[in-house]
């Protein structure tokens, strides 16, 4: 049965990987959808597509790509070119639908007024402001009344240029006007966290304008894009939705020989590796390393999975032209064991799920083995030509994020510090002695405005140490943080090796003299550090301050959170009779004299302002 599932997933994901023929996808749509719907644990998402053109094809493709990401969409579709009216006049069908995400599929054809020929710079500027005011009123109403995340197309380029090359330079030209609008859209996105751009300005260039538009489809069906262009569009939107739901990948696992450099380090020696700008293939390897380094800088964790002697493998990074250095990798597996075994070890070492890994290897046999043995791991078909590796990775949209926060940029440092801790741990007689020596300090307090983005991010991507796996939007987190009917806590943890950042979140719903824990999660980077004890102590303190005597804990089993199945039992909660297989309920009566659980973590004062309750 398991192998059938593997075959299904592998076959389906292969069919949905770009570049993919639109004809093949459209032909197989029904059968692909049927297969994809057989997946378990799909995350439901309510998506409103508000179109400036016909959106049926967009919806069909988007459904496939979202299902392939483990997200099961239900859709609301506006009428043709009714995107604005549906919102501004409050279509009750849209309001009743309560979308989690609103995707606004507009193109340059939906600009209401382009500048007139020869209009002055000031007049063009005013036209930009007017167009922006129209869009902003529309977005603000969505945010205020629907509370949805907005995914908004920026503008593609028109395929005709009445002004010829002057379109690029004259301020009154359509091309220039669209570029200014795109700049304004980007500014709006920077100042509104729940507003994300679907960059069709880039996509139309990538696809090519001749393929982006389809005359037949526009004149017959008012489809703004050709069916072929609808495929990358849908994949791009699906990637953004995936990032909103915290389903992006976290770690890039790389082979070494003929993947990061040309040649075999064990046979050729570091001096004979093909790497550097003095050789056409060596330059391509250099460019791939540069791309990988860029990913690492923005928060993607790097790991090595190579069949090599470890000393040889490490020596490769001493090549004078190597952009990647040993310290860029948070896990390093160079052994002669089967690669699926090493991949499991990497995931365990980094405390992340196998489904957070993307594996790049030039060897098709190794890719096939990992894809077959570990269907959760993404294994892009990179081929053997290094000059295509980065492009194939890009097309997979594995590491799409909806925001970058400081914790992302520090991620490699956190994991590298963890490696240092592991090595340090081996010198101790017992684990308690090790924990004591870490000199841990926790900052725990009610949600603070400065942390709301990180808290939302953690809520939407933590799967393992997560008692209920409930997901919340930014608006919900903000609202809860202001609601006196809730107890909220965040926890940061630092130790002698560095600051782990914000790693734990707890939300409890207060009712008379009890609080029910809707959410309790912790990043796996601080597992087995007793941070959960520190959070529990802080929770009890909050309860005592508010006269709460009873804590109700809920555990909802998922495919991934088995590690916390005994969490409440371990904290001396009592299982209640309303417990069922899908929802286990536990209770803790706070004693008159509570003894702190924390043994090794010192509490530090909260240094940031909390959210004022309404």
């Amino acid at each position, binding site marked *: 049965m398991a192998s059938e599932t593997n075959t299904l997933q592998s076959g389906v994901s292969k069919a949905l990987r770009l570049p993919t023929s639109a004809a093949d996808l459209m*032909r197989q749509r029904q059968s692909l959808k049927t297969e994809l719907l057989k997946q378990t644990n799909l995350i439901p998402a309510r998506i409103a597509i508000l179109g400036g053109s016909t959106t049926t094809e967009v919806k069909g493709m988007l459904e496939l790509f979202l299902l392939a990401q483990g997200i099961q969409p239900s859709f609301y579709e506006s009428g043709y070119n009714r995107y604005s009216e549906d919102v501004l006049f409050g279509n009750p069908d849209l309001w009743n639908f309560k979308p989690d995400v609103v995707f606004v599929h507009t193109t340059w054809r939906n600009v209401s007024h382009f500048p007139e020929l020869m209009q002055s710079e000031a007049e063009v500027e005013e036209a930009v402001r007017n167009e922006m005011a129209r869009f902003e009123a529309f977005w603000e109403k969505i945010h205020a009344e629907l509370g949805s995340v907005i995914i908004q197309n920026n503008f593609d380029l028109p395929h005709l240029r009445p002004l010829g090359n002057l379109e690029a330079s004259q301020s009154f030209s359509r091309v220039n006007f669209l570029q200014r609008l795109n700049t304004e859209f980007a500014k709006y996105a920077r100042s509104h966290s729940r507003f994300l751009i679907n960059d069709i300005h880039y996509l139309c260039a990538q696809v090519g304008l001749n393929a982006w538009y389809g005359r037949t489809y526009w004149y017959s069906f008012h489809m703004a894009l050709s069916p072929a262009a609808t495929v990358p569009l849908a994949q791009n939107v699906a990637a953004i939705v995936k990032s909103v739901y915290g389903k992006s990948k976290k770690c890039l696992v790389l082979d070494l020989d003929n993947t990061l450099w040309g040649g075999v380090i064990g046979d050729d020696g570091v001096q004979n590796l093909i790497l550097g700008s003095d050789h056409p293939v060596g330059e391509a390897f250099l460019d791939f390393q540069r791309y990988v380094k860029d990913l690492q800088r923005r928060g993607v964790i790097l790991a090595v999975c190579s069949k090599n002697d470890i000393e040889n493998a490490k020596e490769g990074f001493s090549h004078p032209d190597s952009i990647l250095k040993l310290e860029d990798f948070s896990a390093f597996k160079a052994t002669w064991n089967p690669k699926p075994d090493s991949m499991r070890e990497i995931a365990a070492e980094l405390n992340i799920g196998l489904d957070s890994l993307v594996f790049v290897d030039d060897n098709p046999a190794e890719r096939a083995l990992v894809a077959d043995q570990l269907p959760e791991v993404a294994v892009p078909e990179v081929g053997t030509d290094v000059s295509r590796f980065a492009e194939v990775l890009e097309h997979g949209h594995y590491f799409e994020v909806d925001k970058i926060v400081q914790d992302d940029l520090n991620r490699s440092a956190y994991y590298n510090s963890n490696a240092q801790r592991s090595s340090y741990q081996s010198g101790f007689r017992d684990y308690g002695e090790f924990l004591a020596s870490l000199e841990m300090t926790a900052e725990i307090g009610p949600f603070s405005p400065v942390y709301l983005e990180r808290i939302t991010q953690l809520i939407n991507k933590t799967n393992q140490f997560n008692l209920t796996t409930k997901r919340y939007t930014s608006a919900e987190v903000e609202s809860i943080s202001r609601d006196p009917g809730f107890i909220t806590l965040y926890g940061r943890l630092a130790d002698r090796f560095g600051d782990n950042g914000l790693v734990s979140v707890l939300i409890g719903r207060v009712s008379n003299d009890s609080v029910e824990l809707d959410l309790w999660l912790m990043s796996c980077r601080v597992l087995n550090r007793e941070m959960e004890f520190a959070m529990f102590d802080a929770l009890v303190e909050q309860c005592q301050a508010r006269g709460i005597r009873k804590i109700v804990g809920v555990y909802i089993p998922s495919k991934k959170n088995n590690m916390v199945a005994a969490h409440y039992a371990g904290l001396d909660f009592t299982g209640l009779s309303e417990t069922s297989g899908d929802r286990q309920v536990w209770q803790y009566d706070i004693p008159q004299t509570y003894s702190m659980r924390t043994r090794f973590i010192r509490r530090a004062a909260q240094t940031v302002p909390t959210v004022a309750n309404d």
Partner: protein
Amino acid sequence: MDQERKSMTREEFLLQMDEILGLRPGTLKGHEKLEDLKNWDSTALISLIVMAEDNNSVPIAPDQVVGCSTVADLLRLAQVDGSAS
């Protein structure tokens, strides 16, 4: 180049139509009325046009498809297997 492209056979065309409509391979025989087919809608129509563009040397125009009432009409339109009228 186009002249070198090989047109689909009648059987290939029907199999691809089966797939577009989510039917078991071999379901369509050619005599079926389009209005009786469960999944025959605008999405299927566009998929058919794309399929013809991709496989066939004879492009199909949307307004021509709208005038078809049976699968046999579609076969004639695509000039599949000598079905041209």
